[in-house]
C-alpha cells in the first residue's frame, strides 16, 4: 500500500452520514466511494483527458511551493483525485438548498472554463464538472435523468445501493456518459441497454456464485444499524431488507 486517504477526509465522511457526490466533466470518468461519500468524477471533453495529465498540470501550478512536495515531483493520480473530491465536497456541502446549483470552477478542476453543477437529493450530492460547451440547464436535466435511471435499475434506489454496488452504478453511468461525453439522454434507452446487459450476465451464471452468497449472508448478520427510511427528494428510497444478497 502506498498511501491512505487523508485523515481529514475520513472524519469528514463520518460526520456527514451519507453523501453522494457525482463529479462529472467530459472525458474522464472516476467513481469514488468512501463508506458514505460517493463521488463520480468525469472530466469533460477538452482540457486534459485523464486525471494523470491533470495531476501533471496541477503540479505545474504548485511549483512555487516546492517545499511542500520536495521529493515527489509527480504526485499520484489518486492523490489528485482525492484532493478534488475533498475540495468539491467541501464547496458543495456548505451551500444552502435555496441557492443556485452552479459553482464557478476553481483552479483544481481546470480553471474558469469549468463549472460545477450539482443536485442535492437528501443526503446525496450529484456533482458534474462541465466545461463551457455544455448547457448548464441541460446538465441539471441530465443529472435528473441519471438519478431516475438509477432508481429504475435498482428499483427504488437508496444510498446503500450506491455504496455496495459501485460497479453497477458505474455500468449505468457508462451508458449515460462515455469517456466524458454525453452518450444518451433518453432514460428508456439507457434502462433497456442496462437490463439487456444484466440479463447477459445472468445467463453466464452471474458474477457472485452461490457459495459466496451463502458466506456473505452469514456475515451479513453482524451488520451495524442501518437507517430504515430515507427520503431522497422526489424519489422514495427504502432501505432494502437485511439479507438481500
Amino acid at each position: 500500500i502506498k498511501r491512505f486517504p487523508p485523515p481529514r477526509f475520513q472524519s469528514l465522511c463520518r460526520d456527514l452520514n451519507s453523501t453522494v457526490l457525482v463529479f462529472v466533466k467530459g472525458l474522464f470518468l472516476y467513481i469514488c466511494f468512501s463508506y458514505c461519500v460517493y463521488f463520480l468524477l468525469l472530466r469533460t471533453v477538452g482540457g486534459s483527458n485523464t486525471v494523470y495529465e491533470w495531476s501533471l498540470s496541477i503540479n505545474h501550478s504548485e511549483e512555487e511551493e516546492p517545499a511542500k512536495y520536495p521529493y515527489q515531483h509527480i504526485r499520484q493520480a489518486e492523490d489528485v483525485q482525492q484532493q478534488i473530491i475533498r475540495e468539491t465536497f467541501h464547496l458543495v456541502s456548505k451551500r444552502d438548498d435555496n441557492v443556485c446549483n452552479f459553482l464557478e470552477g476553481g483552479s483544481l478542476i481546470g480553471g474558469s472554463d469549468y463549472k460545477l453543477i450539482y443536485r442535492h437529493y437528501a443526503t446525496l450530492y450529484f456533482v458534474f464538472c462541465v466545461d463551457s460547451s455544455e448547457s448548464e440547464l441541460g446538465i441539471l436535466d441530465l443529472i435528473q435523468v441519471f438519478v431516475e435511471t438509477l432508481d429504475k435499475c435498482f428499483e427504488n434506489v437508496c444510498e446503500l445501493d450506491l455504496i455496495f454496488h459501485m460497479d453497477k452504478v458505474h455500468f449505468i453511468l457508462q451508458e449515460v456518459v462515455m469517456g466524458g461525453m454525453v452518450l444518451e439522454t433518453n432514460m428508456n434507452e439507457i434502462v433497456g441497454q442496462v437490463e439487456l446487459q444484466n440479463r447477459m450476465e445472468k445467463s453466464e451464471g452471474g458474477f457472485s456464485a452461490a457459495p459466496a452468497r451463502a458466506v456473505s449472508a452469514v456475515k451479513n448478520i453482524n451488520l451495524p444499524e442501518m437507517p430504515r427510511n430515507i427520503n431522497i427528494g422526489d424519489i422514495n428510497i427504502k432501505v432494502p431488507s437485511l439479507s438481500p444478497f
Partner: protein
Amino acid sequence: MALKIVKGSIDRMFDKNLQDLVRGIRNHKEDEAKYISTCIDEIKQELKQDNIAVKANAVCKLTYLQMLGYDVSWAAFNIVEVMSSSKFTYKRIGYLAASQCFHESTDVIMLTTNQIRKDLSSPNQYDTGVALTGLSCFVTPDLARDLANDIMTLMSHTKPYIRKKAVLIMYKVFLKYPESLRPAFPRLKEKLEDPDPGVQSAAVNVICELARRNPKNYLSLAPLFFKLMTSSTNNWVLIKIIKLFGALTPLEPRLGKKLIEPLTNLIHSTSAMSLLYECVNTVIAVLISLSSGMPNHSASIQLCVQKLRILIEDSDQNLKYLGLLAMSKILKTHPKSVQSHKDLILQCLDDKDESIRLRALDLLYGMVSKKNLMEIVKKLMLHVDKAEGTTYRDELLTKIIDICSQSNYQYITNFEWYISILVELTRLEGTRHGHLIASQMLDVAIRVKAIRAFAVAQMATLLDNAHLLTGNTQRNGICEVLYAAAWICGEFSEHLEEPMVTLEAMLRPKVATLPGHIQAVYVQNAAKLFATVLRGHEGVPADSMVAQETSQLLIDRLPLFVQSSNLEVQERASCILQLVKYIQKLQQKDVEVAEEVTALFAGELNPVAPKAQKKVPVPEGLDLDVWINEPPSGSESEDEGRKSKGKAVFAKEESRHTKPRYTEVDEKELAKRREVRKAEQANNPFYIKASPSSQKVYQDGVGVEHIPVVQIDLSVPLKVPDQYVKLEEERRERNKADKKKKKDKKKREKGEKGRRRRGDSGPESEEDITPAHMVDIVTEEMPENALPSDDDDKDPNDPHKALNIDLDKPLADSEKKLPVRSHRPDEVLKSPMEDRQVVEVVPEPKKKTGKEKKEKKDRKKSKEKKKKHKQEEEEDLMGAGSEEPVQPEETKEVAAPPPASTPEASDLDFWLSNAPVPSNPQAAAAPASTPRTASGMAAVAPDSEPEEAKDTEPEETKSSTHKKKKQKKEKKKKKHHHNHSDGAGDESVQNGTVEEEEPLPPMSNYALLAENSYIKMMKQDADKVCDIQGNLQDGSQVVVSVIFENKCDSFIKSMEFNVLDSLNSKLQRPDGAGPHDGLIVPFQLPPGISNEARFIFSVQNIVMPQKLKGTLTFIVKTDDSSTHEKLDFKLHFTCTSYLITTPCYSDAYSKLLESGDLKGCSLKLEGVNQPFHHLLARICFHHHFSVVERIDSCASMYSRSIQGHHMCLLVKTADQTVSIDAKCDEPGLLGNVLDEIKLTFSQC
C-alpha cells in the same frame, strides 16, 4: 489439474466479494488502514490463482480501493488478464478497472491492442460496447493510431448502439491521432443524418466539440446544421447546435442574419427553459457579431433583455443566475438596453445567494455612468453596512473601488465625494483591503492636484482619529490607510490648517503599535510637517516660541521610535532626531533655519506613467546594443549554441575560427536595427521630444473655480458622503445655469465657437456633467506604438491545436485510408487484411458526388420554397450573382471527379447569400468573410489534389505560360541534367572561408542541395530544435536551414518551397495550409545575393535516415519578361541530424554506461592520418557529439537524440587506425550514425 480447480472453488467460498469488502471497511472504522492492507494481501493471493472468476472478483475489489485513493497500478497486468476473458461478466469488470486506473504511462496498455481489436469485432454487441467505453477512457496515441480503422468501420455498424459509441469515441481518437480527422470526417458528416436519434446526437456532439475549438474549418457545415436545427425536435441536439452557431457567427456575419429569425421563433415557441436560454445566448452572440455592421436590431435586443428579465425575476435561483450571466454579455455591446433594468439588478444584490450577488456586482460595474455613479455607489455602501461575512463585504469594497476607478476615474465628476467615500470605507471592520484603499487615496491625491487641500484635511482627521483604525494591525488591514494619510499630510503639508495638531497626532506613543512600514512613514512625514511649522512661524518674533516648542516635541517623542525594533523606523528616527537637536541649537541662537529645513523636502512629486521609461529618447550616438566590454568567452559559447559548446576542449583553435563570423553578423544586425529604429522614430508622431508632456496635459483652469469651499465640521468626522452628493448636485445646477448664461452669450456672438455645441443636446446628456476636477492622467504619456502585446493565449499544449485541419479540401487518394505510421512495422504486417477491408468500405468519390448532387437537389428545393416568399427581383439578382451556373464548368475543367467539398463551400456562399438582407456582390467579394471566392476555388482545387490532378496540372501551366515555353525548353533540359547529378552528392563539404593558417581545415555543415543556372540551394541540417519535455507527437522537430543564392543576373521572386511529405517526416506548414501546399520563402533575391530560410520538419521515427523529395518553384524576372522555373532537390535527413550536442559530466557518463541499458557496436577506421584532435573535432562538428573526457589518444564522447536516446562513443587511435566503440539504447540509430561517421572519414 481438476483437483486444483476444485480447490480453487472451495477457496472461493471464503473469498470476500465487493460487498464484503465495503462492509468490512465500514466495520473497521478505527483501524481502516490495517484492514485494507490485509485485504490487499488477500487480493494479491487471489490474483495468483488460475481461476478467472477469482481474479475478476479481486480486480473488482481493487477498482473500489482505487476509488478510495489507493494506488493499484501494480495489478495492471491482472486487469489486462481479466479484460481478455471470454465471458462478458468478467470482461466488463476488467474494462471498468482499466478505465479507472490506466493512463498514458501505463506500460501494459501496449499489450491490449490486439485484445481490444478482437473485442471491437466481436459478434456480441455488448463486448464491442464495453471495449469502446473502456477505450474512451484510456486511449493513447498508439492505440488511436492502431485502432482508428477498426473504429471507423464500426461507425457503419448495423446496431445503432455500437454506431453511437463509435461516433463518440472518434473524438478521443482525433485528439490523440489528429491525422485520422480528415479521412474520418466524411463519414462523421454522414452520421449527422443517421436515422437513429442517438447516433445523430452523438455526431452533433462530436462535431460541436471539434468546431468549438477551430470554428472556421466547420463553417461549410452551417447549412446542414441549419437544416437540423429547423427539423430536429430533440432539445439536447438543438442546444448543441445552437451553441455551435454561437461559435460560428463571429466568423460569418451573414450566418447571423440568417439565424435571427428561426432563433426568435424558437424563443417565442419553446417551453424548455434550457433551450430558451441557449437561444437567447446565441442571439446575443449574433448581435455582438453584427453590432458593427447592422445597428438596427433593437427589436431582438429588446426581446433578449425582456426574456432575461423574466429569467432573473424567476424564483428559481438557477435561472436567476444564468439570466444575470447572459445579461453581462449584452452589457458589453448594448449597455443602454441593460441600464434600464438597473432596479432589478440592484434587487439581486439583496439575494441570499452569494454567487447571484457577485454576478449582479459584475453587471453593475459595466452599468455606471457619470450620471448614476453616485447613486449606485450609495446603494452599494448601504449593502456594505448590511453585509454579513467579511468575504462578501470585501468583495463589495473592491467592487466599489473598481467601479469608481475604472478607466482612469472616467465616471467621477467630484473627487471630494470620492475621497469621502474612501474615508467612509475605512470604517469597515476586519477588511483585508486597507492597502487597496490606501493606494486609491494616494493615487487621487497625487494625480488630482485640485483635491489636495481637501484630501489633506480629511487625512488629518483620519490621523487624529487613528485610534479607531488601529484595532486591526494585521497585514493589509485597515491600518494601511494610515500609511496613505500620513504621507499625504506630510507631502502636501502646505495645505494643512493646523500642522501642529497633526504633528502631535503623528507622534503619539500609540503609533508605536502600528506595523513598521507605517511607522517609518510617520517618522519621515513628521519631519516634513516640522519643516512646514518652522516656515510658518519663523520671522514672527512672537511665534519663535512655537517653533522651539515644536522642536522640543520632536525631541521628546522621537526617542520612542529610535528604540523601535524595525530597522527602517529606527534608522529614520535617529537620523531625524539628531537633525532636530541640531536645529534646536541653532534656534536657541536665533538663527533662521526654516529655509534650509524646507529645502530637505523640496521639489514636487509628479506622477509617472508605468511605461514612461520607454519614452526617454536614446541620445544620439549612444548604442545600447554595443558591448561595453568584449563579451567574455564563456558567453560566446552560449551564443554560438551547442555547436561550439561541444568544442570546449578545442577552444584554442575554435575561438579564432568562430569569433570573426560572430562579430560580423552582429555588426550587420546592428546597422539594420539602428536604421529601423531611426525610421520608426521619424515616422512616429508620438515620439516624445525632450519636454515632458504631463505638465501640459494638466489643465488647471477647468472647474477649479467651481470647487465649493467646504466647511468641514470636524466634530462629525466620518459620516459625510451625503453632504457631498448634495454639494455635487448644487454644483451641477450651478454649472447648468452658467452654461445657460454662456449660451445666451453665444447667441449674441454667433458662430464663434463650435466647442460648446455639445451643451445643446439637452440638460440630461452625459457630457453635460463637467467634472469638477481633472485627473492628471498620464495615458497620453504612453508612446502610441506600444501596442498591447497580442499574446497568443492559446495553450501550446492544447490538444485541439493539432485538430485545426482544413476539412473542406477533398481527400487525396493517399488519404482515403487512414495513414498507418511505420512506427511499428510488425503490427502493420499483422493487419493487412483489416486494412484492405477498410479500404473497400470507404465510399468511393463517385458515390459521394452522387450524394452531393442529391443534397444539392434538396437544397435547391428548399431554396425554391424560400424563393416563393421573396421578391422576384431579388431572386433574379441572386441567380446572376451566385456561382452556380459558372462553377460546375470550372470544376469539370480542372479535375474530372469534382472534389467532394468544393461545391459544399460554394454552397455555403450561396446558402448565405439567400439571407434576406445582404448586398450580394459585395459579400461575395469580401475575402475575409468567405475563405474562397468562386474564382479562387478553381485555382485552389488542383493544388490540394495533386494525385488526381496530376494529368491536368501541367496542361494548365502549359496554357498559362504557353508563349514563353519555347524559350524555356532549352533551359529546362539543362536543368534536368544538373539535377540528376546534384541529387546524388549529398554531404559534399562546400562553402566556408578557407584560411591557410588554420591548422584545422575549415568545416561547414552546409551542403549543396541543388543548383541550376539561376539559383543555388545549400542546406544545413545541423540545426535542431527539440522540445525536451515534449513527447513523440509534438517534440520531434528538425529545423533545416537553406541558403538560397541567386546566381543569375535577374531578380528572383515568389519562391515556394515544397517537400513531399513521407509518413515519417512532414514539413510543418502554417495553419490552414493543406498537406501539399508549398511554403512561401519570405524574401526575394536580387542578383548575386544569398539569404537563408528555415523550414521546420516534424519527424516521427529517428532511427532511420531519410530522403525527402522536394521542389522549389520561383519566378525569374528580367527587364522585359518573367519566367516560371522550378528546381528539384532531395533533402537528406541523416541520423546524425537527429543528434543534439549535449554536454555530459564524466560521472553521469559512467553511470549511464554502468546502467547496462545501452547496446554496443564498434567500428574501425583504417588509414586515417589526421591528428587526433582533428578527428575529434570532426566528429564533434559533423555528428554533434561532445567530448566527455580525453586521455592521450583516447576519448569518450556523448550525444543525445532529439527523442532522448543516449549515445556514447569511445574513440581510440593507434597508428592511423581509429577504433570507435559505441553504445546506445537504440541499436538501429547507433548503426546508422556509425555508418555516417565512416562516410565522413572516407570523404576526407
